[in-house]
């Protein structure tokens, strides 16, 4: 991937920073977004749309605790429903954030600077949304902490052979590391906000968050080193986390789950959906905040290319999954594949094929790659496609497994939908609050980038 994006292969396209933009411009424009006395009208509009959904999540959760998991559509044999699908979907979305900020950093992809903050934040909130589901979907959610190895007076311990325990460790680690990465990277920017803040309150608040950053040479040296180290740690983590998530399925003997292809399949899918979300977020934000010369169409195009690349990997996985089902001559797998394509849930299969495999091919066309509108639409479609794919993996594999007399169909209830919508609302609201109170572009990184470019010949500025 690194080489695919290295300077050489990139055709002359928009620069990573519009020419003439100075460090000062970046700092002023970005911090202005945060320090502005009042947010723009659309912000309130968006918040007004997201907030009720959060309320809905609250209601759905409350009712879940009162009545029980039975308010959802889960049944025998489909004991896992939307909750787990949503979990996989959300956590997948998170991955592009880490990927952009960590891997691209290690690969010295300087173009990442302007969008890594957006992406990292996305990761953080996506993982929060993901984390809600494994807890809510328990029959007795109030005992979720029994998965933690703590010396309980019952003297019973978690069962470390269960992928669910791996999940617990993977996701919590992932969240912690993402949080650290995000925060450490943001300290210098918080210092900028502290120093530019108009009101005393803001100055104190950002001052505390900045921890007393003075931008001294030593600060910068340690900071840079630790940031790179974190990136180095986060990169394998990202791969491990979704591999573990995929093992929830691959570890089981259910046809359609029990397959070694799942880890790479899931990781690719995760990054895929993640980049789709980055696009659906970046495109509107750069326009609304007039940051088009900081988040240039060059960034969008690079994301588009990554989207295309991961899209092809996902497509390959689809092919292999079904090929192996045939090649293995396992009657149960064969029956699953047939049921997936022509059974009661066949529409899901065909929809996600279109969204995840067909639509993305449009990105071969440079004009599409460079058109924000198209990228937004494609990104949105892929989000939907990936969600449906997760649902398909969970439900279709379960609803017809080994013993036909135990077959059954899952039908989601209003509460299944409410919980999904609720987390989307939560994500949106959290994100809105972030862009209102924290810098959505890494200012110091951008400043550095601009300074570096100033010293270089024009050609390299596209680097």
């Amino acid at each position, binding site marked *: 991937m690194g080489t695919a994006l290295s300077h050489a292969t990139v055709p002359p396209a928009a620069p990573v920073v519009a020419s003439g933009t100075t460090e000062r411009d970046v700092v002023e424009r970005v911090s202005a977004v945060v320090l502005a006395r009042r947010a723009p009208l659309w912000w309130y509009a968006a918040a007004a749309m997201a907030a009720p959904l959060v309320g809905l999540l609250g209601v759905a959760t409350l009712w879940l605790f009162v009545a*029980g998991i039975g308010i959802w559509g889960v049944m025998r044999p489909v004991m896992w429903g939307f909750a787990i699908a949503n979990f996989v979907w959300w956590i997948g979305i998170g991955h592009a954030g880490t990927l952009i900020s960590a891997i691209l950093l290690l690969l010295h992809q300087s173009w990442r600077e302007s969008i890594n903050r957006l992406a990292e934040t996305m990761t953080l909130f996506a993982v929060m949304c993901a984390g809600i589901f494994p807890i809510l979907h328990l*029959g007795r959610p109030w005992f979720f902490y029994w998965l933690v190895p703590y010396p309980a007076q019952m003297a019973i311990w978690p069962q470390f052979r269960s992928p669910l325990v791996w999940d617990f460790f993977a996701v919590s680690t992932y969240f912690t590391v993402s949080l650290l990465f995000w925060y450490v990277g943001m300290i210098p920017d918080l210092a900028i906000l502290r120093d530019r803040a108009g009101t005393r309150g803001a100055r104190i608040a950002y001052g505390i968050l900045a921890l007393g950053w003075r931008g001294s040479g030593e600060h910068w040296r340690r900071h840079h080193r630790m940031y790179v180290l974190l990136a180095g740690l986060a990169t394998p983590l990202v791969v491990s986390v979704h591999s573990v998530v995929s093992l929830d399925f691959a570890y*089981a003997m259910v046809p359609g789950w029990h397959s070694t292809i799942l880890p790479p399949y899931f990781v690719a899918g995760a990054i895929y959906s993640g980049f789709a979300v980055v696009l659906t977020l970046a495109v509107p934000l750069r326009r609304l905040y007039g940051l088009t010369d900081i988040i240039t169409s060059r960034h969008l195009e690079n994301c588009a290319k990554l989207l295309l690349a991961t899209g092809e990997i996902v497509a390959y996985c689809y092919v292999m999954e079904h090929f192996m089902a045939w090649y293995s001559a396992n009657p149960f797998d064969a029956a699953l594949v047939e049921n997936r394509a022509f059974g009661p849930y066949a529409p899901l299969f065909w929809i996600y094929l279109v969204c995840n495999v067909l639509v993305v091919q449009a990105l071969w066309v440079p004009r599409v790659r460079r058109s924000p509108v198209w990228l937004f639409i494609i990104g949105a479609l892929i989000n939907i496609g990936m969600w449906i794919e997760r649902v398909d993996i969970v439900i279709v594999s379960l609803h017809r497994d080994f013993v036909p007399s135990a077959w059954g169909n899952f039908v989601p209830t209003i509460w299944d939908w409410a919980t999904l919508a609720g987390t989307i609302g939560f994500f949106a609201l959290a994100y809105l609050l972030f862009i209102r109170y924290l810098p959505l572009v890494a200012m110091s990184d951008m400043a550095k980038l601009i300074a570096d470019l100033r010293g270089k010949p024009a050609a390299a500025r596209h680097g």
Partner: protein
Amino acid sequence: MSPLNLRSGHSDSGREYWRILEDPGAAQPPSSAPAGSPDALTRRGFLGIMGASLAFAGGGGCSRPPSEPIVPYVRAPESVVPGKPLYFATAIALDGFSTGVLVESHEGRPTKIEGNPSHPAGRGSTDLFSQASILTLYDPDRARETTERGEVRQYEDFIRALRAAVDAERASGGAGVRILSDTVTSPTLAAQRRAILRSLPAARWHQWEPLMPTANATAGARLAFGRDAHTVHRLDRADVILALDAELLAGTPRSLADVRAFAERRRVAAQTEPRMNRLYAVEPALSLTGAKADHRWPLRARDVLPFAATLARRLGVETAALPAQVPGGIAASALDALARDLAAHRGASLVIAGDGQPPAVHALAHAMNAVLSNVGRTVVYTEPVALPPDPGDTLEALAEDMRAGRVRVLIVVAWNPVYAAAADLTFGQTLERIPFSAYLGLFHDETAEKCRWHVPAAHTLETWSDARAWDGTTSIVQPLIAPLYNGRSAHEIVALLDQGAAAPTSGYDIVRGYWTSTRRERDFERFWRRALHDGIVPDSAARPIDVALRPGWARAAASDAPTPPRGLEINFKPSAVVHDGRYANNGWLQELPQPLTSITWDNAAQLSPRTAGELGIRSEDVVALDYGGRRVLAPAWITPGHADGSVTVALGYGRTRAGRVGNGVGFDAYPLRTSRAPWFDDGLTVEKVGTTHPLAVAARHHDMQGRDLVVAGTLEAYHRDPNFVRARTSHTPRDRAGQPLSLYPDHPDAEYRWGMSIDLGACTACQACVVACYAENNIPVVGKAQVQAGRIMHWLRVDTYYAGSPDRPEVFHQPVPCMHCEKAPCEVVCPVNATVHSREGLNEMVYNRCVGTRYCSNNCPYKVRVFNFLQYADWETESLKLQRNPDVTVRSRGVMEKCTYCVQRINAARIEAEKQGRRIRDGEVVPACAAACPAQAIVFGDLNDPASAVHRLKQSPLDYALLGELGTRPRTTYLAALRNPNPDEAKA
């Protein structure tokens, strides 16, 4: 959907129980200790205390021991140890004929019913009705008050009113007095009847049941032999059996004995040189008998007579005027083959006519058995066991008198005639016109509503009585518990008609009094204790009689010859789960997947795929059934193997006053049932209404998808290659020892290795095991909506698969409990160690530890784990708490549960064994399912003991593991289903 309305439907303040506590009678030490029972005092004293202590235990207060001495079964210690159940022998009746049972009683509170090994009917097994009757005992909907026109009265008021009404009739010798009872097999009741009719010669005593299992048979016997004769089949002696629209294997008072005998002749695994009996069946709707048959032809009920006549003629029976053409659908060659097969087994063949078939068919069956010289061998005729129904004593006669206003005092001790009587009798309306009508019933049901007086009846387990089994064996019915709601028995009500208050009035005195009169006083006490203890009265079986075909019988029988068919045929069958409707308020039975269809909480109009196609009907379409000017709406259900041009409806549903569980469940087919055609008739028209009625079907897929789930074969194939099963399941990789290969090392074995073997050849899918499992393991009922949502809670299900053409399908049954895999996939995925393996090989479920990830269920290839999605267990209803098995946790919301191999029974046996310092003996641990199974298809035991029955069965070449290729190493394995088709027929 609030958690509340998902409960079993009961929510009930414990008020009544407290009222009972205040009732001075409650905790009083019982009076009238009978002479010569030395230990009676001590036990009674103890039980009295237990009653009191239960009273303090709150809701338990309503359960109190009967005040008379009742005799525990020998398995129990004489002195009660708290926490240790006692077993009492008693009897439970179906259609008037009793089955011997042992009732498990915890501290004076009956909790579970088992078969009585020393009783000839069940020989230790039970049917699903007696299993479920324990729930009816504690049904909170049971009537609690004596009422007059709905007003609460004292029982004494009723006595006064009744005596007054009857005394008014004495002048006329009781001309206006009528008594309507169930089929009377009780010697005591028969004696009371004689006494009544002596003191009131003009009064009449009518016998009636919704399903009269003896009616047609008796009439048939009168036709053939010109005398009353009771038919007892000896399937254990029969090599070739022909069932003429006869349900042998479930739902009749004969079934238990028949299934046992039948299965004995199908169990080849244990035999050295395997032989099997052969079963032929012709019937309209696929029955459990037809499903088990080696050859089955779908035949409209009306075509059974010509079929039987044709066959009889081939067998050399003189059938005179009887129509005899081979009905369509059966090749003449097949009929020949059948005839040859029967003839080839003279004295070892058996022809059985169904209860619903007209007397002529029964006469033909009698005749065929006669010419095949089966009489005295496979079929035995005895003197009537039940009081023979005199033509003048039918319900029709009573209804006639009522309409004519000749009835002034009517006492109904039969079950619910208003609901179940033939529609043309309009029994309900006329009943309201009777000046004095009284009804003894468990519930304030349809009949109670129409009668002037309603007296709460005592449940069988609260009653002193006696009853006879199908073969005449008599049992004394002893109560396990004092009436919860002051219920009375039929004996007590009937006794009130006797003039002179001197006459005994308590059920105990009446029953004991009758038996005293039959015995010499000296040895009576020993006799009495022995009869109570054993649960049977020694050598009380009906005496065989000699019969001979009376000449010209066939001409008389010809009157039953069917008229040319008009329109579709309608068939009435008792429901497989609620019988004639008397179990409608029983949640266990309503939620039980009905055999073959897996429908719960509903009945449906069943018809064949072809007929449905012609009428453009799909399953779950609502259809209007028009017959005899009456119309009933019902959901359709397409049933493979059903006869074309015929529709079968199950009776017993659509109750309006059954109780909170049974009201409005299914549709009521009785309005279509007339006294002229109580079983089947032509002239039905069926049309779609346009709406649909979604059914709660526990399993909708009955196709094996080409997977080796039920491995089946023929006896011939087995003779040719005894290892054909192993060949079929060869895709399981095995090591040299024949064990499936595994990457994992074996864990050290404990002293015992528990295992189970299920014989698919013997299983008849009667579902008794499933109900027994509900009763033993406190399994909650979830209601129709939850079953539809795919959340039925049964730990043990009986899968049914169809193979072959939908017109004449081959049917396979497979009971599926937890397999207790040695390499259990469910365990490794549990994150909290909530399901782990015991050293003895049990796959254990730790409810307290379960957080409800449900991963285990996903990873269970057999899908035998069920989950408490909501608060299913009823924690409010006090009376239901009394039913619970104290040795089994009542699960709460959010935890997984599953079959435990009845671990509580294993541990009970272990404690006994350790106290005596020995190993647990083979057969000492019997899980509830195995104990109930009439076919003895389920065998459980210790695989470490090479002598154990289960170990020997698992050595059989027929033994195989379900989905063994997955390497789960199930401890529960199956014996392949063998059939024994007629080779001759196969050629034909």
